[in-house]
């Protein structure tokens, strides 16, 4: 069955994907010198003899970068070995002034681990993606090939040179573009949740390389196509599209040339976002000879167990655990917990604060997913800058829960709060919404029942829903009337007749 072709006459195949993610760590200063890591500063204003690679300058490790790497490794279920060291990776490129990059070769700070990701093919289920390792290294500078330099030169800005990167290397255990995207989304959520990286792809603080090939089943044998590393993808969508494109291209190449992993070595392709195509960057990968050796300028790092355990303690709750807790503590559905948690830590806090204030987590969840998230999207704002605070939203929904406001009136108040700010009390007062006191409600009910004897008969005849006809009439008499309270009072009065 394995060699049965599909409707297009193709053999069945599986796309095999491994991802290398470079995440810039959120330190104030660089990995081996104290220059600022601030993004977007004027060129070559955040440099010193160390990151310029001037002779005689000596690197000194940034302790915070080590801590962030440990925290990330723990969150990725990695073993954190007690010793890690630094190696020089030699290559020549103008944005790497030393002629080598300080990286980690055989003793990375984070050893094998894994990340559980939502299974895109099976809602509510997860897939476990293995990780080979995660290691620290310094970033390179930036080459610019723009008009200002003319055709004769490239311009080099070394501000970024030496910024700490954590390179997270997955095993080739993703089998579709959708899984690769799910992995990246979950990894980004985790890194931003931990606060270890900004993960802004547009600013280059998260970079993704995808290693892609196919396993084709033909005549009972598995044929592997040559591995292609795709670079230069600037969004998760681009990663997804590039993998889809590569899968098609590789199948076609195999049909046309018969190339396999045995006959063609690994190649590097770029991604053109405009044409949505991959293109060859390096045809034949020079069997990479980086001549790694231990960096004699740096001493090894010994990490006592206590330090690692302290980092584990300080890590707090991870997104996967928050999803679980939201289902048990607040009785949210898996889908709802997922939506809120995936918005990031600020939204998790917003929800919890509002749910506690309203004492109605489900209503809070639904308001956040509808009214709050829609508004954020319309205004292109982050929850941190949202004009209605979590306490205020919680108080408003508390009013709904207590029956003092109906949902429609609450929406009016919400809109008023969005535009004018202030408290729930101020908004209701400004909108002329007044609490209807019991005697008013009582009088209104007596009036309605006297005017509508047929409703009384229907209810007494066993149709309590008949009071619904009176709600519209009541609203005309007093727009502030609460439908829930009105219904209850009417039924109580009829029952007592």
């Amino acid at each position, binding site marked *: 069955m394995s060699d049965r072709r599909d409707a297009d006459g193709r053999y069945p195949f599986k796309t095999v994907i491994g991802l290398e993610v470079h995440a810039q760590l959120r330190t104030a*200063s660089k990995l081996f010198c104290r220059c600022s890591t601030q993004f977007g500063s*004027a060129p070559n204003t955040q440099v010193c003899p160390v990151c310029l690679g001037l002779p005689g300058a000596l690197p000194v490790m940034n*302790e915070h970068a080590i801590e962030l790497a440990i925290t990330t490794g723990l969150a990725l279920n990695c073993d954190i070995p007690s010793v890690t060291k630094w190696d020089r990776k030699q290559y020549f490129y103008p944005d790497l002034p030393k002629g080598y990059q300080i990286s980690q070769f055989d003793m990375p700070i984070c050893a094998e681990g894994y990340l559980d990701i939502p299974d895109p093919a099976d809602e509510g289920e997860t897939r476990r993606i293995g990780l080979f390792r995660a290691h620290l290294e310094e970033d390179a500078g930036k080459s610019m090939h723009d008009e200002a330099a003319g055709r004769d030169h490239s311009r080099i800005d070394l501000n970024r040179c030496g910024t700490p990167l954590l390179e997270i290397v997955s095993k080739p255990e993703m089998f579709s573009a959708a899984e690769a995207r799910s992995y990246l989304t979950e990894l980004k959520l985790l890194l931003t949740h931990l606060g270890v990286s900004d993960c802004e792809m547009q600013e280059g603080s998260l970079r993704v390389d995808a290693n892609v090939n196919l396993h084709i089943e033909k005549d009972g044998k598995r044929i592997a196509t040559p591995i292609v590393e795709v670079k230069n993808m600037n969004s998760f969508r681009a990663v997804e599209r590039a993998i889809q494109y590569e899968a098609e291209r590789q199948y076609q190449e195999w049909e046309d040339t018969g190339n396999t992993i045995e006959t063609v070595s690994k190649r590097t392709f770029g991604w053109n976002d405009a044409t949505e195509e991959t293109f060859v960057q390096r045809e034949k990968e020079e069997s990479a000879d980086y001549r790694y050796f231990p960096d004699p300028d740096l001493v090894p*790092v010994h990490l006592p167990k206590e330090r690692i355990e302290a980092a584990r303690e300080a890590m707090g709750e991870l997104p996967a655990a928050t999803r679980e807790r939201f289902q048990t503590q607040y009785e949210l559905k898996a889908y709802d917990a997922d939506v809120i948690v995936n918005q990031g830590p600020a939204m998790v806090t917003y929800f919890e604060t509002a749910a506690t204030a309203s004492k109605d987590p489900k209503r809070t969840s639904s308001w956040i997913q509808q009214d709050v998230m829609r508004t954020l999207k319309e205004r292109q704002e982050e929850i941190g800058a949202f004009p209605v605070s979590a306490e205020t939203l919680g108080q408003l929904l508390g009013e709904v829960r207590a029956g003092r406001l109906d949902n429609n009136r609450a929406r009016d108040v919400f809109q008023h709060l969005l535009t004018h700010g202030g408290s729930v009390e101020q908004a209701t007062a400004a909108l002329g919404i007044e609490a209807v006191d019991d005697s008013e409600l009582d009088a209104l009910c007596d009036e309605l029942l006297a005017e509508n004897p047929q409703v009384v008969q229907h209810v007494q005849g066993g149709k309590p829903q008949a009071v619904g006809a009176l709600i519209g009439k009541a609203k005309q008499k007093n727009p502030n009337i609460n439908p829930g309270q009105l219904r209850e009072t009417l039924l109580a009065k009829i029952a007592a007749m």
Partner: protein
Amino acid sequence: MAFSDDDIRKLAYLARLELTDQEVQTLGPQLERILGFVEQLAELDTEGVEPMTTALDVNNRWIADVVQPGLSREQALANAPLADDECFLVPPVLPS
């Protein structure tokens, strides 16, 4: 350990050194003598000895993550063979 001329040329390429044929002939025997000297270490029995990662008797020399001023741009670019008023200039990285 014997070096072929190709080995020498590959090493030279990796270090971005341009060697004349004469230099290749001179360097080959020199590198062989250097490696032969280091190879004496192989006579030692290292069974059960942990690999050494440094000759220094210190660990964990690190510093707090606090930004300190570095060089001004003028200073940074001062010794560059070629620069404009913002950046280092190098031969074009990608052929136009």
